[in-house]
């Protein structure tokens, strides 16, 4: 009995090492969204194109959309923008969430860089962003035709991210619609 007891620390260490090894592949800063599987939060916010027009979550229904959180003060959004233009050109519906930004600057920005968005929600106070669990820009949500959030990406969406993580889910969601 005594000799076996002396092996316990070794066994515990072996188990620990396995976890550490697996842990090396993980990114501790990656935070999955609490809203995956939940309906898109309800909101009433103006549209960027026409501030008299009030948008709500129902405007997202009936098609599979990407909701992209962006702002003119966000440096990485500039890097992401061409990719969004490309996706829009492929026929993918992208809704913009203009997060804590200035209307005029946002409109100007889109004029200069191209507008991939079907429409833009103006979230000046960040209240919708808060309900979505947004921590900064850029972030992108995949919302299905029933208005349920299925995926969130924190950070830039580039070709690799689209190919590896998003495009097959998008195709699947579009397939579910038919």
């Amino acid at each position, binding site marked *: 009995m005594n000799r076996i007891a*002396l092996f316990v*620390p*070794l066994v515990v260490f*072996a188990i*620990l090492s396995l976890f550490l090894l*697996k842990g*090396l592949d993980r990114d*501790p800063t990656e935070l999955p969204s609490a809203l995956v599987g939940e309906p898109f939060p309800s909101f009433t916010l103006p549209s960027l194109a026409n501030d008299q027009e009030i948008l709500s979550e129902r405007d997202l229904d009936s098609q599979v959309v990407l909701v992209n959180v962006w702002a003119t003060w966000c440096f990485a959004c500039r890097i992401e923008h061409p990719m969004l233009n490309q996706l829009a050109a492929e026929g993918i519906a992208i809704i913009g969430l203009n997060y804590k930004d200035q209307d005029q600057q946002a409109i100007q920005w889109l004029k200069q860089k191209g507008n991939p968005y079907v429409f833009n929600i103006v979230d000046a106070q960040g209240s919708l962003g808060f309900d979505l669990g947004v921590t900064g820009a850029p972030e992108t949500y995949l919302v299905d035709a029933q208005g349920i959030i299925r995926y969130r990406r924190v950070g830039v969406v580039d070709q690799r991210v689209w190919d590896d993580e998003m495009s097959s889910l998008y195709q699947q969601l579009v397939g579910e619609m038919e």
Partner: protein
Amino acid sequence: MIAELGHFALIIALGMALLQSLVPMIGSFKGYSSWMRLGSSLSMGQLFFVAISFGCLAIAFLNDDFSLKYVSQHSNTALPDHYKISAVWAAHEGSLLLWALILAGWTLAVALFSRSLPLVLTARILSVLGAISVGFALFLLLTSNPFERLLPMAPMEGADLNPLLQDIGLIIHPPMLYMGYVGFAVPFAFAIAALIGGQFDSAWARWSRPWINLAWVFLTIGITLGSWWAYYELGWGGWWFWDPVENASLMPWLVGTALMHSVSATEKRGVFRSWTLLLAIFAFSLSLLGTFLVRSGILTSVHAFASDPERGVFMLMFLAIVIGGSLMLFALRGPAMRKVAAYSGWSREVMLLINNVILVSSMTMILIGTLYPLVADVLELGKISVGPPYFNFFFVPLTVGLVIAVGIAVFTQWKSTESRLILSKIPVPLLLAIICGGVLPFYLATEYSFSITAGLTIFMTVWLIATIAADLIDKIGIDLKRVAKLSYSYLGMQLAHTGLAICVLGVGLSSAYDQTRELRMAPGDNAMIAGYEFNFSGVNPVDGPNFTAFQAQIAVTKNNQLVANLFPEKRHYNAGGQVMTEAAIDPSLIRDIYVSLGEPLANGAWALSLQVKPFVRCIWLGAVMVAIGGLLAATDRRYRRRKKIQANNKVAL
């Protein structure tokens, strides 16, 4: 050129370490005493070359050699010279080189101060230390080379040292901490040598004890400095955050403390042999594990070094070999536990056992809490955070238990103690503690409520000090001259335990009675907190050597007498653009007044954080007393009686 010299010196050091790990060890099995003696010269050579390597890196910093990637990332022409030198250990590669240097230093120390040990044991110890050095040298050369060049595109200017590190704390804290971490490699090597040789008796315990004590003293100082540094540098008055990197330093300390106590029983009574060996292995293993956790990017922390998966894998392999290997050796060759009871009841052995159980339980709890987010993530249980509420929940009651046990332990004797003896000593200190703990908080009650924390804290402090005083009086009566007759070992112990009491007092009372207000103040505004009046005069721009700042002036008065003028700053560093809060503190043993400058608000007003923190300085004062106590115990006469133990050096094991 100098960098290449440094690089080359490191390679030579690796060669020496390789020889050192093999030659004396083989010599110890074959009985070649010339091979065994080589360990000593090899360790000298190793230190020499690692020191050259380290020196070359320091020179590269002083010369602003930005063609070196490491220098360009962490230095700047405007950086003051003393920070250029301390920038050497500001990040991963350089701090590893510091590790290697300190390891070489401890190795040489063992070689020089082991005249009284059998040559075979010394040879094996030096070989184990050499093997560890090989690991670090390889790690440096293969994955973390501080001498890597950025040619041909060397930048004209460096990125500057992180402003948080531009402080005297960086100059002392990491070296002290590493002295402790690396210092535990020595008891580790002693343990491995003992396991290889099959001899684990009181003599082994006697020889390893000073090394355990010394490493522990350095680690205590290192952790204390880290806490104090965070307090005044980070700007919001906290001094411990249960951050993974902090936990990585506390865990080996807890095990080191347990080891220190366990080995005393092994030396005096020959008990706890396996346990002491295991603790010696654990202490250094936790040092290594801590190094891994901090540098692999596996955990999120404000202190973490920049990470790289390649480094993580290498370190994990190193860990597996060193820790796995030593635990395997322990399992195969560790002494089987005795069946005969050598002690019973309220004996000193049992008190030390209680000490060990509490300390090791604390360490285990901290390990579980620190690693659980990782485990949960790997097991797909989600992203969970474990923070101060969890750690405090367990640590506080464990510490209370420990403090109570320390008080009782003072009165116990080896092998067994009559319950009557203990019961006769306890009532007075206990009564005193209960009275003070129960009554004083009412007297000190703040505007909100009676503080149980304060009551418990005072109870613990008075209990400890009263039991220590009682024992001292038992030994020397009131004749203070007889203090000189007490051994350093005993005096060190009592001093360290008193330090513990003071530290507990500081922690408890500052938690209970801290008063913090976040205020919006315009120039001319006043505020009164805890009897002190704060008058805000306004904010002026000032310039530093490598920053520009807004400096506020706050006059603190009490009963219309000036207590202090405080000048907190908000600094913008030129090179990197970072913003740093520089708090202003008026220190005192009784209370710290802590002021920091927040954001500018509308109409010339500023957000200011004003804090009055009673007895917070006792935390570090107590910790320093603990360290001094340990140092005193390490220099006890019996460890210095080298001349008489020179015989029997030729013992074959």
